């Protein structure tokens, strides 16, 4: 049983880390494609490319930070995971607030429903890591 929960914790941490790296790298390399596909409405403007690339670098940072901290032992990774999880929770809330505004598309509704699950997994994983540390 303990092994299964360990595996689940690893899966959540590695999934979040890799997800952050892949999403970050995509936003960095292809901001216009991401804008078109997800319907952000930034239309190849200077601020649009800058903001998407900046969000990308931060996702990449959290992904790399989480994976690096994880490689050094679980307790160090819990802080990274909790903060990334909280950021995703606010993203979900933001999608809920904006989903009826002009320019919003199906992706935003999907994100509004999907992100809370990822965020809850991240926060629960982080809490389990801290509990493990306290033992």
């Amino acid at each position: 049983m303990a092994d299964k929960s360990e595996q689940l914790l690893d899966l959540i941490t590695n999934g979040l880390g890799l997800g952050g790296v892949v999403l970050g790298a995509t936003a960095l390399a292809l901001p216009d494609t991401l804008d078109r596909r997800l319907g952000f409405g930034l239309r190849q403007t200077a601020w649009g490319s800058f903001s998407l690339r900046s969000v990308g670098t931060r996702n990449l940072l959290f992904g790399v930070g989480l994976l690096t901290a994880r490689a050094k032992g679980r307790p160090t990774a819990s802080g990274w995971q909790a903060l990334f999880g909280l950021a995703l929770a606010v993203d979900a809330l933001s999608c809920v607030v904006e989903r009826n505004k002009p320019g919003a598309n199906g992706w935003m509704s999907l994100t509004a429903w999907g992100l809370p699950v990822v965020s809850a997994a991240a926060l629960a994983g982080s809490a389990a890591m801290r509990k493990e540390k306290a033992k």
Partner: protein
Amino acid sequence: MDKKRVETVTTSLGLVLLGAGSSFVLLPRLVGRGFGLTTEASQQGGAHVVIRALGTRDIALGLGLLANRKSGGAGRLWLQLFSLCMAGDVAACVLALPRPNRNLLSVVGGGLASTVFGLLAWNAAGGKKR
């Protein structure tokens, strides 16, 4: 850089990130207009989501820096990755320069601020190693 200065730099960077991130989260329309988004684009739901996403990640980064300002190895990782993140922001500013609707002051100002923050964080990370 001595230990006390490293802690001061880390705390200052954390507080700046918290301030910037909070304004992005609370005032996405104003921030969008300030950075050169057109009135129509700055009212789009998607633009607000991106601006808020940037803000929440800055807040998370700020909290991470503040929480680890006194720790050695963990704090160094936050500072090193933050300085790489600032390098990414500088590159994003340079790549944004030839695009339409740019606000030259905010692009150049953002690039300069990111350079200064990145160098400060890199030096502080080096100070933590000693």
